[in-house]
């Protein structure tokens, strides 16, 4: 029999109010809260707060760990400052596609590792969304060779920024609102954000015309549902099942929504806005790939937990790559 106990939770979010996908829309965190409410017949009420409403964007991890709020929506790689291994639960450069990532998380030991590592901090996490493949970004000038990267000023945070910097790029940290004016005026030469739908919303196509596509830096991007472990353990089994099912439903829904709106947005950008969309030249990609391998190896060697996750991730990646080479890849090559 279902438990009749009701629960009122607060969920904070690392993204600002109104943001499609990250806050609202199909498969978004607000949609998750609604789904849970309906599925539980009103026994679980989650009140959602966008970034800044209760706490600043990047404070979700600490707030959930301290039990100040029960849940948070973000990306695990935002917590790389507390747990370096968390990077792998969102994406790593040249990592896996969304299909591969989901396979690793749900059936390749990824989720177990995630739980094991977070348990030490009194936390548990589940995937709750996915942007699909992101884009390399917007460039004011076309790129032809690795040399064009030297001295290039690019807004690119995180691990990808580190990889680029090895090839002479100057990674610039800018808050979201200043990306557009900076790119438009040429303070920076290039900027990475998300994908066609989100980038068009920011107006980046009005600041730079060259849109390099397939985002080797973020080939997939998992939204993290973070829950305080004590809160989770206190939930009856049926309510836990509801939360898990709603989160998994959001992964599928948000991902398929992104695929649909990105397709439209890309067509619009190319046909109506004069954007030149193309993948990076192969010579640049292969250099980036080499540097990424070194960077990841170094990271894995520096921290045992990261090493452990890296090993699991890479072993699965290898296995999945040979399968994908025979399944998805020939099919996609048809287009």
């Amino acid at each position, binding site marked *: 029999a279902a438990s009749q106990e009701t629960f009122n939770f607060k969920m904070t979010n690392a993204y600002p109010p109104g943001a499609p996908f990250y806050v609202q829309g199909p498969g978004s965190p607000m949609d998750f809260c609604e789904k849970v409410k309906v599925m539980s017949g009103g026994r679980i009420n989650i009140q959602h707060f966008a970034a800044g409403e209760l706490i600043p964007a990047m404070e979700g991890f600490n707030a959930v760990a301290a039990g100040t709020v029960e849940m948070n929506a973000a990306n695990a790689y935002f917590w790389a400052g507390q747990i370096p291994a968390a990077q792998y639960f969102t994406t790593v450069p040249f990592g896996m596609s969304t299909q591969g990532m989901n396979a690793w998380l749900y059936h390749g030991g990824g989720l177990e590792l995630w739980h094991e590592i977070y348990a030490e901090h009194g936390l548990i996490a589940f995937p709750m969304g996915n942007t699909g493949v992101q884009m390399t970004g917007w460039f004011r000038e076309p790129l032809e060779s690795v040399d064009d990267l030297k001295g290039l000023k690019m807004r690119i945070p995180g691990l990808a920024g580190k990889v680029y910097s090895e090839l002479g790029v100057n990674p610039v940290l800018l808050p979201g609102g200043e990306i557009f*004016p900076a790119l438009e005026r040429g303070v920076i030469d290039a900027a990475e954000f998300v994908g066609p739908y989100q980038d068009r*919303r920011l107006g980046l196509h009005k600041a730079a015309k060259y849109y390099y596509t397939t985002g080797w830096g973020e080939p997939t991007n998992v939204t993290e549902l973070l829950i305080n472990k004590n809160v989770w353990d206190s939930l009856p089994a049926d309510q836990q099942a509801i939360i898990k099912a709603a989160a998994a439903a959001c992964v599928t829904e948000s991902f398929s929504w992104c695929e649909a709106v990105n397709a439209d947005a890309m067509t619009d950008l190319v046909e109506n806005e004069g954007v030149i969309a193309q993948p990076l030249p192969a010579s640049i990609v292969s250099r980036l790939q080499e540097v990424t391998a070194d960077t990841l190896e170094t990271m894995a060697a520096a921290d045992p937990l990261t090493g452990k996750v890296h090993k699991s991730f890479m072993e699965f990646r290898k296995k999945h790559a040979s399968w994908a080479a025979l399944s998805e890849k020939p099919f996609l090559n048809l287009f």
Partner: protein
Amino acid sequence: MSGNEWLIIGMIGGFLGMMMIGIPVAISLAVSGFVAGYLGFGPMLFNLMPARLYGVVTNYTLMAVPLFVFMGVMLEKSRVAENMLETIGKAMGGVNGGMGLAIILVGVLMGASTGIVGATVVTVGLLTLPSLLRRGYAPSVACGTICASGTLGQIIPPSLVLILLSDIVGESVGTLFAAAFIPGLVLAVIYVAYLLILGKIKPEWMPAIPAEERAEVTGKQLAKDLLRDVCPPLFLVVAVLGSIVGGVAAPTEAASMGALGALAIALAFKRLNWKLVKEALHGTLTISAMVFFILLCAQPFSLAFRGLGGDQMVHHMFEMLPGGELGALLFLMALLFVLGFFLEWIEISYIALPMFLPVFMNYGTDMVWLSILVAMNLQMSFLTPPFGWALFFLKGVAPPGVTTRDIYVGALPFVLLQFAAVVVLFQFPSLVTWLPEAIGW
């Protein structure tokens, strides 16, 4: 009304009461927030407090506060600002309010380089208020002009309000920046017209530089003075705005070019020495911390407002509203104005906008136009006594003898002018929508 609603009213009343008897504004905010919040829901919500405070003191865009204040204090200490205003006043000849016009120009230029009200009001106030008073301007007129000019930066791009709104309404930052440009200038023009008219009616409130004194300087000398006194501050404008437009610096960092430029000017005038720098650092530290003191202590207040269900209260009011797009718009404008009496604009945006936007999307309201109306309205709340933040910030840098009453009285006409500007935009949406379409942003 529920118990919590009484608590909200008590909290606002308590804040007002403490503030009025002379308890520091920041402390009044924090105490009323803590007490009402504690009575309403116990200690729980205050566990969020450290993260909120951390968010304030690590907010990248607030870096513009110390940087701009440093520029302002340097200019003040090296007497560059004073000379500039005097010379402009002389160049304006017999026009009453000439120096006031210069201040509006300074406000526009500073507004075009930052979007932080605290930074602009404080800097403009620091630079110009002493000179205006010395030249016999009525304190209230001087204070009102400075507060109004200083808040122009809210609407003239780049603007923090517009950046936040762009996220909430889903329009690009560039579109909103372009849309706000003409309304910002319209507002400045309205201010200028007001000062010119006031100068005609009440010349004693804003006297021109006396004719005898003007006669002492020949045309040639005046031209030389202009070159000597107006060029350095113009150089700073070029340093700050030029570095943004020229692609050297992003908006927030550009403030550092102004700060560096002010050091360079002091050096060029042979006034740079360790004593001057030390004084400038002292001034920058006290003024910046004054701004942060208020921002930090506003956190318990807004957290309590939300925790006590202040947003629900607003929601209920909205549900009682008669239908229609116009009705909803008018209600939104009135609500923003009223909330602006006691809440910070970020909090207002979070509470009111997400709730209203779906309604306007259904009506098919132009979101760009709506955003600019909202931004203008929020800007107005900065100026509105008794809680307008621009007024507090100016009080923080005003010389002895300038009272809160002067600032309040001076700001009121500008609130009315702002209101007029909102009405103009309401009637002529093309003032907002034309530029973004014309330049394709």
